[in-house]
């Protein structure tokens, strides 16, 4: 218990001290996580919406697979991406293994299924409500997808935040494709793993507290934005 309390103090000192290495790790975490969450939403939201609205053969199987991917183990994704990006692999020529770019790719692949599966359900529920009215107004399917995405934006915003949280907390895949290189691909989660392995538990815990604080701050900010925009649109 004393260990946990002392870690809070250590966490505050880390933030106040703003040591260069610490700031670099925090900045990198935020960069790769925001980037992969954004990419995952750009891909996953329309994907989920299209599956929700479109009728095509095998639709139900697609939905089953999408939901199943929610349980995709991250180390598996990490390993697959590693094998793809390795020099010996098909995409080796890109030369982005062990760079933040590789981390963004792995994290995006992990977050897309989550965003797609959740947005599909949200948009499908909205579609049931809107379908007849939109058909009556001559809204074509492509336009309907866009309209549903915008109208369900409050719920989808929460989906996006869930994706962001998932990105922030990823460690296994990031370790494999990033290599946890000091000063290059060390993010908060892999730093915590390293400190734990080194037996520096109070520092590891302090980093964990800082990570939680960042995620909390981001969510609070997002909530504030939502509250501010909600009354204007109802």
């Amino acid at each position: 218990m004393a260990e946990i309390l002392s870690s809070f103090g250590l966490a505050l000192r880390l933030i106040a001290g703003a040591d260069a290495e610490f700031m670099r790790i925090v900045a990198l975490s935020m960069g790769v996580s925001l980037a992969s969450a954004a990419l995952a939403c750009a891909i996953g939201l329309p994907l989920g919406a299209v599956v929700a609205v479109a009728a095509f053969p095998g639709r139900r199987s697609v939905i089953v697979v999408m939901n199943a991917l929610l349980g995709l183990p991250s180390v598996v994704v990490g390993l697959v991406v590693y094998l793809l990006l390795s020099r010996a692999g098909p995409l080796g020529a890109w030369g982005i293994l062990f760079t933040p770019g590789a981390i963004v790719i792995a994290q995006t692949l992990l977050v897309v299924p989550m965003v797609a599966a959740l947005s599909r359900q949200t948009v499908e529920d909205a579609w049931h409500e809107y379908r007849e009215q939109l058909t009556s107004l001559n809204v074509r399917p492509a336009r309907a997808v866009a309209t549903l995405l915008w109208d369900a934006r409050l719920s989808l915003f929460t989906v996006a935040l869930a994706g962001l949280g998932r990105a922030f907390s990823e460690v296994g895949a990031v370790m494999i494709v990033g290599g946890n290189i000091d000063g290059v691909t060390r993010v908060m989660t892999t730093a915590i793993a390293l400190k734990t392995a080194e037996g520096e538990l109070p520092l590891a815990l302090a980093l964990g507290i800082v990570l939680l604080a960042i995620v909390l701050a981001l969510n609070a900010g997002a909530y504030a934005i939502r509250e501010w925009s909600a009354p204007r649109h109802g």
Partner: protein
Amino acid sequence: MASGRSRDVLPLEVRDLGVRLGGRQVLQGIAFRLDAGRRTVILGPNGAGKTSLLRALHGLVASTGSITWGGGGRQRGAEAMVFQHPVMLRRGALANVEYALAVNGVDGAERRRRARTALEQAGLWLLAGQPARSLSGGERQRLALARAWALRPRILYLDEPTASLDPGAAAAVEQEIGRIHEAGTRIVMTTHRLGLARRVADEILFLDDGKLVEQTPADRFFAAPSSAEARHFLDGELP
């Protein structure tokens, strides 16, 4: 409204129309013809198939048999419908009308002008910026009507337009419908309010148990309907 329609969508001719929903035959052997210039009200007891008929005519449910518009196929842009529970998007009242116009190819200044006119005519201009979903039932119905009217449809379907409205709102809607008719749009409406039917209808389509029992000019229908079912209906219904 996207103009450039090559031919008129009226007369609307329906032959041997059938609709099956949830394993049940809700409409069967429906046949009638709607010419221009008249207001048609569809009457019938609960479960007769009035809403299903409207949905079938508007293309929202699959049907057997044939429907022709002016001898040809459906022209999507020539119809609009006001649902009993209209769905509004999560945006302002004016924005909802603008959306409908935008989707139907009206852009820029003309879109803004037509949307504004639609709201003003419906007496809703003061609510232009209000979130549409926060409007009262009556306001929402009038907004739905304004939205449909902004599209200048040739045929306007209305499903129980005053069902959940108070007398004031109902009167406003009725007035709107009258104005739309004057402007040349073909009105096809369902209602269970006989008073509204009497005031609005030029002709009545009477449905019972999924079949079209009679198509009669309104004054003759209310004075002396030809079918026994209609007589039963008029006797039993509240005015």
